[in-house]
């Protein structure tokens, strides 16, 4: 008899999770990367095949082209994927603050025409601060519409602490916080534990042994959402830390899907 719980038992046999627990991936992409790596099988239809194998019902996606080069083209490509597969993909609008003259129009297009549900911001790639003037229209739009912003490449958590207090109707989801080497408390965990509207994405590329359980114990399962970053990374690799973690199945259910359902109002 296995000593672990039901969800881990399903995983060790590679049984798709869909019939047992709802899984929503809060952090995914689509499309190719020219930056430093080859992303095999990155088209929406290939991604659905991967999602089906694991049993993921929906993935919240931004296009790699939107993040790394042309935000408007990338948003269009996500819209096309949503049109073709409305039950499988939820769209993140990418608004590049380096093109301030286009932001207001693009916000309207993304949310009124494309049907996107949330916003993706990437500080490292776009090299523009979350609290910069050019991004203010985005924050105000999010605040007015009770939206979630997935924040990737955050440099200063002081900024996030201030913004989360200033924009209380906006949810801030911090990317890549499911992996912790346990050498000092990361600021992201401290902010998420304190601020009611700050959450953590469980992706993160290093699998420190026991690190994920520590993250959950610091912030609570209700503050963590499963994310994979796939096809930038591997969906099954990233979900392993949740499936095999030594936390209760109820906590896993919250992390795998229930928290995302609430945040994205699905």
């Amino acid at each position, binding site marked *: 008899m296995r000593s672990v719980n039901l969800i881990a038992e399903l995983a060790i*046999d590679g049984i798709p999770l869909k019939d047992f627990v709802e899984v929503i991936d809060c952090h995914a992409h689509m499309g190719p990367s020219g930056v430093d*790596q080859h992303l095999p099988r*990155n088209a929406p239809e290939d991604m659905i095949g991967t999602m089906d194998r694991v049993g993921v019902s929906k993935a919240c996606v931004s296009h790699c082209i939107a993040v790394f080069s042309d935000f408007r083209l990338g948003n269009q490509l996500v819209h096309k994927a949503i049109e073709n597969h409305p039950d499988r993909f939820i769209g993140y609008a990418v608004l590049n603050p380096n093109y301030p003259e286009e932001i207001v129009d693009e916000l309207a297009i993304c949310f009124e025409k494309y049907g996107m549900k949330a916003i993706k911001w990437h500080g490292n790639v776009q090299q523009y601060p979350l609290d910069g003037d050019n991004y203010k229209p985005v924050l105000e739009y999010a605040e007015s519409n009770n939206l979630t912003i997935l924040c990737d490449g955050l440099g200063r958590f002081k900024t996030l602490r201030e913004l989360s207090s200033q924009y209380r109707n906006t949810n801030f989801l911090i990317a890549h916080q499911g992996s912790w080497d346990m050498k000092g408390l990361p600021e992201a965990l401290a902010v998420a534990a304190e601020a009611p509207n700050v959450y953590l994405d469980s992706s993160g590329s290093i*699998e420190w*042994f026991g690190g994920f359980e520590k993250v959950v114990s610091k912030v609570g399962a209700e503050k963590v959402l499963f994310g994979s970053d796939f096809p930038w990374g*591997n969906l*099954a690799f990233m979900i*392993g830390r949740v499936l095999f973690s030594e936390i209760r199945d109820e906590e896993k259910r919250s992390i795998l899907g229930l928290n995302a359902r609430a945040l994205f109002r699905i």
Partner: protein
Amino acid sequence: MPTITPIDLFDCNATIGRRAVRNPESPYTIEGLAHIMDHHKIKHALVSHAICESSGPFPGNELLLSEIEGFEGFVPCWVLLPEHTGELGDLKALMKRMVEANVRAVKIYPVKHYFNLSEWCVGSLVSELERRRVPLLMDFDIVHYSDAQRRIGWDQIYELCKNHRDLPIILLRVGMNVNRNLFPLLGRFENLFMDISYYQANDGIETICEAFGAHHLLFGTGLPIFSPAAPISMLMYSGISHEEKRMIGGLNLRNLLDLVSME
């Protein structure tokens, strides 16, 4: 109804022993490692001693043998260096001792131990290993996948694979960003292998199996520093056949160890 043969997991990338910096959650004893393996249904592990990583091959290699004695499921892997500085003693005597102790695999740390993988540095060592077909595992001290850009010398791996065709070369903990360098090598060399412990490329396992064959991949974890959850999940949910999963899970490593000449 046909019976499905279970996937027996054989971890090719595990260590035991204390380190200067401790992950508070990681076990460092053989008992602790055995408990984690049991929890994750890992039946066997090819294990080396952590002392060898930071303090050189001796006394860690001999200590490993005494620490795993009496525990089922552990197969010793010694850590070696190029022989020129005399830290290994005489190469022939070393090989004789490996045969006596039934050590069928070795690991090197070219980054951490700071030596070059060119022929002029490792040629005689790898020739001796090749003569016996002893699998050579290479740990490049990769923590984050981006470390590969600075730490893996692909030209040197190419030369070693080309010059030592009977030597199984196993790359450990290569990350998701290696495909553009890795694939040309997998396409050329049947003696090149890699563990999947950190190979989180999207559908990477599937792509390699389709293009080059499942025999190039070995199940590995990086225990106890890194969690086995991700590689197990990745293997079990991969879109490959059950037989390919069995090969990667353990059969490929078993085959390599069985081919070692212990005469």
